[in-house]
């Protein structure tokens, strides 16, 4: 009877029921879409940084980060890599030489980080070959003259294309300068635009000769893990114990700004949700006040006839629960459809140069990600807030005596 009355009452004013449902749907959908965009953005940033820039864990000479001097190199890298790869949880490792320098074309000069790589081993850790689009060359797979792979932003800046001649300059381990010509073999393009702009790859043997390093002397060993990036802290502590004379860093230590960005986005997300919840609760309190006060006389009459407060409360509660369930069902369908669509097509975003200069990297499209916990949290919170918002007017109406209500 109570349930039937509740359903009939909801049908009494269809427009109002629709607006209550719509406001809850908008709240849930908006909140979840915002959260999924933020999560997707952070995931892409982290994934891009790990995939092409830092791997999961990096090893350097203890003082490498003091001045990034070419002389701060690791000895016996071949043996070290063999030992590291035998550790549990490590998928692959690659040695790199890294020197800050310049690159010059006929048009202009730019600051770059020159990375000397062993292409075969490198690809086990950094799949940069996958970031070279068709028609933009290859990753040291096919070349005739001393090759270099550069990012597309840098290529545009230098006015370079495949087979363009570029000259790189840098400092040797003795403090002298070197300079040598290279020919563009591949142009890569990734989400991490900051990295794309400043990082160039050349064969490690070439850079070793230019910088004065021997074959197994390198600046960096990049490690990729078998598990996801969240387990990197555990590997870092294990490697720190095993190699106390080396600097072992996880991706988040190398790029702390990503963690800061994550925290900032989480904070923004929480503020957004709070505002949405506040707006929804105000709307619902307002509508429910109207609903119950409009029927004040009816509630008074029902109480006069013998319907107790608990039953009246149950009746109003049933109306709210029906509205909430309907809103939840529809918003779940909408969210599923919207997120499925954007999961495939991505949400196009503007590349903001200011963000780029912070070194965070930017993305051209965000692929929203929604975790089950986030969905449960937001919908649960909105349901609870809506429920609590409805209770206030209900409790107020229940305090009124039947005779007073019927006078209305």
């Amino acid at each position, binding site marked *: 009877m109570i349930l039937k*009355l509740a359903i*009939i*009452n909801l049908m*009494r004013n269809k427009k109002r029921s629709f607006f209550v449902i719509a406001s809850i749907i908008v709240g849930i959908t908006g909140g979840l879409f915002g959260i999924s965009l933020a999560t997707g953005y952070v995931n892409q940033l982290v994934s891009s940084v790990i995939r092409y820039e830092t791997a999961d864990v990096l090893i350097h000479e203890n003082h490498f980060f003091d001045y990034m001097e070419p002389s701060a190199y690791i000895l016996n890298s071949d043996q070290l890599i063999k030992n590291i790869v035998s550790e549990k949880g490590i998928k692959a490792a690659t040695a790199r030489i890294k020197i800050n320098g310049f690159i010059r074309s006929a048009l202009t000069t730019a600051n770059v980080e020159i990375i000397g790589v062993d292409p075969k081993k490198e690809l086990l850790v950094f799949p940069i070959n996958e970031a070279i689009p068709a028609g933009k060359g290859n990753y040291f797979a096919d070349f005739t003259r001393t090759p270099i792979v550069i990012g597309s932003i840098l290529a545009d800046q230098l006015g370079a294309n495949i087979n363009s001649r570029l000259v790189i300059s840098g400092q040797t381990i003795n403090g002298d300068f070197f300079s040598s010509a290279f020919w563009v073999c591949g142009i890569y393009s990734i989400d991490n635009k900051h990295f794309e702009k400043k990082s160039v790859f050349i064969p490690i043997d070439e850079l070793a000769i230019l910088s004065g390093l021997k074959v197994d002397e390198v600046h960096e060993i990049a490690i990729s893990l078998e598990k996801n990036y969240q387990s990197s802290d555990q590997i870092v502590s294990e490697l720190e114990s095993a190699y106390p004379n080396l600097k072992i860093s996880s991706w988040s230590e190398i790029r702390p700004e990503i963690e800061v960005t994550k925290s900032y986005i989480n904070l923004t997300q929480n503020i957004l949700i709070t505002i949405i919840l506040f707006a929804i609760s105000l709307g619902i309190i307002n509508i429910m006040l109207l609903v119950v006060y409009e029927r004040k006389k009816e509630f008074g009459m*029902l*109480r006069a006839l*013998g319907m*107790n407060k608990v039953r009246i409360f149950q009746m109003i509660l049933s109306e709210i629960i029906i509205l909430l369930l309907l809103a939840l069902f529809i918003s779940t369908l909408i969210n599923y459809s919207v997120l499925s669509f954007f999961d495939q097509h991505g949400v196009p975003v503007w590349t903001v140069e200011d963000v780029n200069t912070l070194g965070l990297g930017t993305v051209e499209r965000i692929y929203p990600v929604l975790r089950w916990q986030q969905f449960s949290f937001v919908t649960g919170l909105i349901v609870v807030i809506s429920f609590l918002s409805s209770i206030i007017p209900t409790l107020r109406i229940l305090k009124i*005596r*039947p005779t007073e209500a019927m006078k209305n």
Partner: protein
Amino acid sequence: MNIIEIINLEKHYSEAELLIKAVNKVSFSVKKGEFIVIVGPSGSGKTTLLNLIGGLDSPTSGEIFVDGLAIHKMKQDQLTDFRLFNIGFVFQAYNLIPVLTAKENIELIMKLQGISQKECNKRTAALLEVIGLSERADSKPSKLSGGQQQRVAVARSIASGPKFILADEPTANLDSHSAEALLDTMQKLNQNEGTTFIFSTHDPRIMKRAKRIIKLEDGKIIDDITYN
């Protein structure tokens, strides 16, 4: 046998620092099967008295016993349950639930009492027959005339098997034909089923049918006449 005992009942209101004695030292008793009409000018305290007897309002002082139970001592929640099982109400403005049909309105109290659907159907059909609205069972109140709505309200008040029915100016909004039809129904129920009715009214048609008339003025009983 008395089903209602009212002893020295008082209800006072304060309005702009003025004490209003809406009901003033009222005492009387009601026997089962009576057809009582409380009359008096506007503001004489008729509705207040009915509200007190019905447990809708609490007295300032005095005692009300229904079947020996002191309802003036009951708390609001106890009174609500008491009303559900013991008192039927008929209001001036019908007060049917607009979204329910005539049949559903009659069933409402029975369902609150926990009576089975089968029993509800049986009683409702019988009551619709008594009030002459069997064919309008599935009509919503908005599709019924004032008289028909009030007859449904009477059926609703009887359906729960109350000890007595309080009817506050039940014919006030009805035309003479509907009022007569309604009173016929109520009188029939009183005579055939022994249902006790207490009316408050100005309507001479009800007074004409009354077995007892209690006259109120300024909250006091000034006359209590029983007819044979």
